[in-house]
């Protein structure tokens, strides 16, 4: 406990009253962050906070950490990859720009799997973040540093994160914090270092539903710099406290989401559903038949797109450079061989294969069709239900030595609960089943129904 141990709500209240000495606050925050980082390796870059204070209302300098793959002008952005060593963006991502306009303190860049390629933050070109709940275990990934910092830092703080196939829900669940992955397009991807453009979504991880709703309200909405962005400005945090119960809320519980789960996870998530029921909600078991194709379709689409996105890293204009030798092909290969990790190479090879002439129809185009079927299947569910409930992850955070034993396919299979919502581009919220417990209740809603998720999530926070 420090004198700055307070919630975001309290911080906004105190700072508005002028009760916070910002220089003192910043210095204490910096010291604490550095201390935690030594212990858990959560951040790749810690900013000199005093240079990055934006103290204007309404956020009055609230500390925000940014996932490494989101560009902050003038701050090294590695996206977890050595190949980007030396890349200092000349521009702010739109979400960062909007936060600065609303007055935040940029704390630093949080660790992640290289370009988002992972579920445990272990596929990184740099240090692997450790779970503050148990340092022998993974934070989850790929936004592991973001969730870990939210869990570890006792200060008011919210983290910008990003998900392609579950990279917000997985670490939020494992670190016992809240993560919102919004509808595809609701937050501009301008300034996000691409993993898979049709799947990437910027979202928020925080200590409470209120915190993530507050920050999403600021960063969401159409941006002319990203032509896939959509949505109106909306204050998601406004009426949260006025919702007292879950009367009338209809929950779908897909049976496919309750297979191959760790016992404890299954038990806790059922408990959570029952708690919602006792607070007015009704639930019904349903079936999402295409779930079994989700992981395969996802990894085909995501790696196909990733393999084109990663082509630009060749040691020519930014990032890592090599010794100029041989023709351009040889030079590019040398740089890419030394700059990318094994997992990145695996995904480049997989993705290149699935879009080659002759395989394209069998893999890439078929996966796109499956994706359409999964969207339709979800749309049908939401004709009758408000949300789909499931666990966020099939297991509790594994130990690092257990992760090492997983084959790539076993590893990819860990995402089977988060992938369908990500493929469908539908918003989903991970809320811990109990405070500081590394099991997440996963709620998915229809496109642009974030407000529904926040209302249900904040009631659940009170009754869990």
């Amino acid at each position, binding site marked *: 406990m420090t004198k700055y141990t307070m919630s975001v709500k309290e911080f906004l209240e105190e700072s508005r009253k002028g009760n916070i000495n910002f220089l003192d606050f910043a210095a204490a925050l910096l010291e604490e962050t550095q201390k935690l980082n030594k212990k858990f390796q959560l951040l790749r870059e810690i900013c000199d906070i005093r240079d990055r204070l934006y103290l204007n209302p309404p956020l009055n300098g609230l500390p925000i950490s940014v996932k490494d793959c*989101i*560009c902050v002008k003038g701050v090294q*952005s590695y*996206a977890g990859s050595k190949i*980007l060593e030396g*890349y200092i*963006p*000349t*521009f702010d*991502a739109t979400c960062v720009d909007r936060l600065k306009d609303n007055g935040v303190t940029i704390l630093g860049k949080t660790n992640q799997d290289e370009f988002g390629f992972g579920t445990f933050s272990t596929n990184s070109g740099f240090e692997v973040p450790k779970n503050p709940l148990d340092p022998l275990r993974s934070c989850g990934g790929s936004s592991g540093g973001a969730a870990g910092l939210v869990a570890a830092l006792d200060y008011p703080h919210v983290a910008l994160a990003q998900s392609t196939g579950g990279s917000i829900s997985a670490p939020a669940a494992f670190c016992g914090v809240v993560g919102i992955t919004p509808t595809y397009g609701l937050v501009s*991807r*301008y*300034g*996000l*270092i*691409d993993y898979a*453009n*049709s799947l990437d979504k910027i979202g928020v991880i925080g200590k409470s539903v209120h915190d993530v709703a507050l920050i999403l309200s600021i960063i969401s909405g159409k941006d*002319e*710099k*990203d*032509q*896939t962005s959509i949505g109106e400005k909306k204050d998601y945090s406004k009426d949260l406290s006025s919702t007292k119960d879950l009367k009338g809320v209809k929950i779908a519980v897909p049976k496919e989401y309750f297979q191959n789960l760790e016992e404890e996870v299954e038990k806790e998530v059922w408990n959570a559903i029952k708690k919602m029921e006792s607070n007015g909600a009704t639930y019904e078991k349903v079936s999402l038949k295409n779930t079994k194709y989700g992981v395969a379709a996802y990894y085909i689409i995501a790696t*196909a*797109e990733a*393999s*084109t996105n990663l*082509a*630009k*890293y*060749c040691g*020519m*204009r*930014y*990032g890592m450079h090599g010794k100029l030798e041989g023709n*351009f*092909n040889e030079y*590019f290969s040398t740089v890419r061989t030394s700059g990318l990790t094994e997992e990145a190479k695996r995904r480049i090879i997989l993705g*290149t294969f699935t*879009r*080659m*002439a002759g395989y*394209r129809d069998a893999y*890439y185009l078929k996966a*796109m069709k499956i994706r359409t079927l999964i969207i339709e299947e979800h749309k049908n569910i939401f004709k009758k239900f408000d949300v789909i409930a499931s666990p966020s992850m099939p297991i509790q955070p594994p130990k690092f030595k257990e992760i090492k034993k997983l084959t790539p396919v076993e590893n990819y299979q860990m995402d089977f609960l988060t992938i369908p919502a990500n493929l469908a581009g539908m918003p989903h919220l991970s809320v811990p089943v109990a405070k500081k417990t590394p099991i997440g209740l996963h709620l998915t809603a229809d496109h642009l129904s974030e407000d529904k998720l926040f209302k249900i999530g904040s009631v659940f926070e009170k009754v869990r």
Partner: protein
Amino acid sequence: MIFMVTIGLEVHVQLMTETKLFCSCSNKFTTIPNTHVCETCLGMPGSKPRLNKKAVEQAIKIGLALNCKINHEMFFSRKSYFYPDMSKNFQITQYEMPICFDGFLELNGRKIRIRRIQMEEDPARLIHEGAIEKAKNVLVDYNRSGTPLCEIVTEPDFTSPQEARLFLQELSLMLEYLGVYDPNTEGSIRVDANISLPKGKRVEVKNVSGFKEVERAFSYEIIRQSSLLKRGQKIVMETRGWNAESGTTISLRSKETEDDYGYIFETDLPTVEVSKKAMELKYGMPEFAKQKVERYEREFRIGREMALSIVSEPDIADAFETAVKEIDTHISATFFSKMLKKVLNYENLRLKQTGLETKWLITIMKKLENKEITDRAAELLLRDMVLKPQDPEILLKLRGLTRIDTEEALDPIVLNVLSKNSLAIIDYKHGKPESLEFLVGQVMRATQGRADPVITRKVIHKRLDE
């Protein structure tokens, strides 16, 4: 032995938009390298493309002018290959659903079929210091990166290099009338061709600029292939580059199989509906050269040759159409088709490049109409004006090019000429009438073309007959 040759073209046209295809960088040419660049056209991590609507409109116009079908919707794809001129090592182009397809251009009564028209981004420009084979370094200028291109793909409908050249000239003029491209910018139209002979293989000749070069390159390639066949050798499927300096094509890479670019959808750019815009643009198409020629013949009763000369540049046609409102049709048609074209061709310029104002040209024509200046003087004026655009009234005063058409004024000049040309006088007296014309020419020369030829002849006659 005559070979039946088959040629198909892929024509890349740089569109004349204010900004680039996927960012707001200027699309204007500049000689200072890497100044019209931003995070998007440099392919910086985190940047995103956004589509330039004006470029889409221009592509639709091209499709309409080439009698194409316009797709209801279109989207972009990523074409992946590694090359140092590529900012992202993939090109944003169109694959499954291009903007236009199935069109044609009529060439001397024959239809050249257009397979498809697609929009794409131009890569950066590579500059090899010295010759490409010997250069130690290569410089990259990203000013060109992201320039909007329209790729027009024809069916293999050409049977000679001459025909291909004619097609490109017609296409170029059409594009100029559409106002979508600037023929004066170097590399604004670049051609790849697939050339094949019977019993041969398809050979691709890449990146030829300039219509004359196209004819040269293709002719060379046909001779190369036919002499291989004559000697009983095989033609390999390959890609060749044109070396304008040596006048030969050189093998760049063999093509054992079709290139595999691993196309996927470009999901950073949403699907665009184009059919509605096409309906709108259909009614605003300009009058093209061919229609203009017909109209000029009908409306102004001028000859086909003259009309063709006038419509050879949209700016000349515009100026002509303005001029005929106040100047005699014959005078203005002759002025534009003969005099102005001659001066422009001599300097290898187009009217657009000179900065000449139509009102100045009208001033000159009025003076011709009123016989204030001679044809010769008008031409001299134009020669000065195309190099340095200026008001002919001022230039006339400076250079004193007004017509000398009184006997009193010409008499001393004639006397002076006669005193220096006694031989011609003797010839004349011995009944050689052509020496009279020689003397008239000398007076013209002495007056820099200002002397009225009819009056001059009269004065010389008078003096010689004395």
